[in-house]
């Protein structure tokens, strides 16, 4: 059975010109997403800014309230939980944030930051045991607890701060880590350290990861399956090798082709025109048809394609991909 199951999740934000004025429209940040993550699995979530990937991660971690839909953890629904019931279930999923500067309290010591989840959840009440636990956590993320525990966040580099954030997230022994752009604020040479650390921790602890990032190369590297989002909807899901090797959705193809790489020619790159449309008024039919190089008039702009299976573990939401794979522009 899957660890996490998301069904028809929607998160809509109201657009209000003023505090008391009527709601003018709704931003459909996440608009009907189904997703499953198995125990010990890493699922990557990619898309451009504004596609709803961060909101989806936050809705799963219950940091924003879903407008509709259900989230199940270990088969038990967690949407709608309140108070102590919500706090209990939060022990089983934790979040790692993008900005290692903004996500650590500058006035707390590292020891205090990593111990805080234990204090909140009333674990390891005895001081000595708690300190030992914090030391073990810091050690597991590659920091020297002896020197780190009494120091403050500003004394650490970005990569080290991200390690502290990971240690804090691991304090409650969660089953699922939602990582929202955990490496995008880091230098390239340090990025690799953190990606390797997450992989090692997963091998050792068997936790599941939802790895949200805009960098497809990093996502492909760390994930078993990759989910591609566009304007609040999933457009393609596939095992990571398949997604990168033979993507079926034209958006995925453009996304992959836009990734700059050393030693790759830029000659036959697909460069998408224009920007992502506003999620307040998504285009009719397939939301991608306004930028799609192969969209068919009267079809793609009229009917919204459903996410349908096209291969083993491979789902795509595109009319043209279902017709015949040959019509899609090759990479």
């Amino acid at each position, binding site marked *: 059975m899957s660890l996490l199951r998301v069904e028809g999740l929607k998160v809509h934000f109201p657009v209000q010109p003023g505090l008391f004025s009527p709601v003018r429209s709704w931003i459909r940040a996440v608009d009907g997403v189904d997703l499953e993550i198995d125990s010990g699995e890493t699922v990557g979530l990619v898309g451009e800014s504004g596609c709803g990937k961060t909101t989806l991660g936050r809705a799963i971690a219950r940091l924003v309230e879903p407008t509709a839909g259900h989230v199940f953890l270990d088969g038990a629904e967690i949407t709608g939980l309140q108070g102590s019931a919500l706090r209990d279930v939060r022990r089983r999923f934790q979040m790692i944030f993008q900005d290692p500067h903004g996500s650590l309290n500058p006035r707390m010591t590292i020891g205090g930051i990593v111990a805080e989840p234990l204090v909140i959840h009333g674990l390891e009440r005895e001081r000595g045991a708690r300190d030992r636990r914090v030391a073990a956590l810091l050690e597991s993320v590659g920091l020297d607890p002896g020197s780190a525990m009494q120091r403050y966040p500003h004394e650490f*580099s970005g990569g080290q701060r991200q390690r502290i954030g990971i240690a804090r997230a691991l304090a409650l022994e969660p089953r699922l880590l939602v990582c929202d752009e955990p490496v995008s604020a880091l230098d390239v*040479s*340090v*990025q*690799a350290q953190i990606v390797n650390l997450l992989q090692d921790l997963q091998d050792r602890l068997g936790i599941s990861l939802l790895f949200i990032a805009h960098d497809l190369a990093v996502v492909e590297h760390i994930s078993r399956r990759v989910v591609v989002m566009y304007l609040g909807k999933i457009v393609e899901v596939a095992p990571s090798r398949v997604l990168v090797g033979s993507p079926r959705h034209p958006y995925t193809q453009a996304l992959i082709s*836009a990734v*700059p790489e*050393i030693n790759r020619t830029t000659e036959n790159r697909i460069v998408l025109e224009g*920007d*992502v449309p506003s999620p307040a008024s998504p285009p009719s039919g397939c939301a991608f048809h306004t930028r799609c190089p192969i969209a068919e008039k009267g079809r793609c702009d009229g009917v919204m394609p459903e996410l349908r299976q096209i291969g083993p573990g491979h789902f795509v939401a595109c009319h043209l991909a279902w017709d015949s794979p040959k019509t899609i522009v090759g990479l």
Partner: protein
Amino acid sequence: MALLEIDNLAVDFVSDTGRVRVVDGVSLRLEAGRTLCLVGESGSGKSVTALSIARLLQTPPAVYAGGEIRLDGRNVFTLNQRELCAVRGGMVGYVFQEPAASLNPVMRVGRQIEESLLLHRPGCDPGQEVIRLLKLCGIPAPELRARDFPFQLSGGMQQRVMIAMALAAQPRLLLADEPTTALDVTIQAQILDLLRDLQRQLGMAILLITHNLAIVDGMSDDMAVMYAGQIVELGPTAAVLRNPLHPYTAALIQSVPRLQVGARRLTAIPGTVPQPGQYSAGCRFYPRCPQARPPCDTQPPELREVAPGRWVRSWYVAGEESGVVP
């Protein structure tokens, strides 16, 4: 004579805690119509080098501690205020990382471009020229967009406006400091294509500053890799990327995750980028270097030409011992 010549530039920053050197002996040449990429991680001094070209650093805290920068043969450090104004935004155009932060939020974008035209090209018809520049930078319906405020435009469009503004004075050198870092990959591809096209049409020189090794390929003729305030490797882009000679360059290329490679682990560089003022006594990369050996720990290496056009600052150069340096 090259369009841009930097000789032995040194820049210090002064603070309460002392004086630290953030750019240490940087020398570069950039010919008209060519592109040079300056690559490095945060704190390597690449932006400080670029800002120094038009003396844009605030002094203090910055102190130009040595060296010379010549634009078309004229030393930037001896220019008076009026001459500097002709250089800033005139001969040298800048495009910065965050278009949203660089544009004036309460001014229509057309007006902002006009400012540069009025200052640097008093003869032209500003209204028409703004439209032409916006069109040149690939902005659809330029007549309408010129009347927009920055917040009405997307990040990619804002960056196009920034580029249009930088091009307004017909610069001979365009300095692009991380121009695509704040943008999505699909938009990044658009902006890089635009810069390439513009260079082909207008023939200006581009100094592109980036931390992203992947965009260097295909964008530049030459590249310089900076580490801890110094250039550690300099050479033709294709040669450096395919056959890096400095251990840092090699490690940096290795640590970039790539599509469809399928390695289980990434090759990370251990440790962290050193803070200015906290460099090791010998080679500054020595504490993180996989090839470290005596005298790396005690003697700082010089930048030397190990093969025609290939400059490396390292005691260890890949392939040198066996005599197979290209």
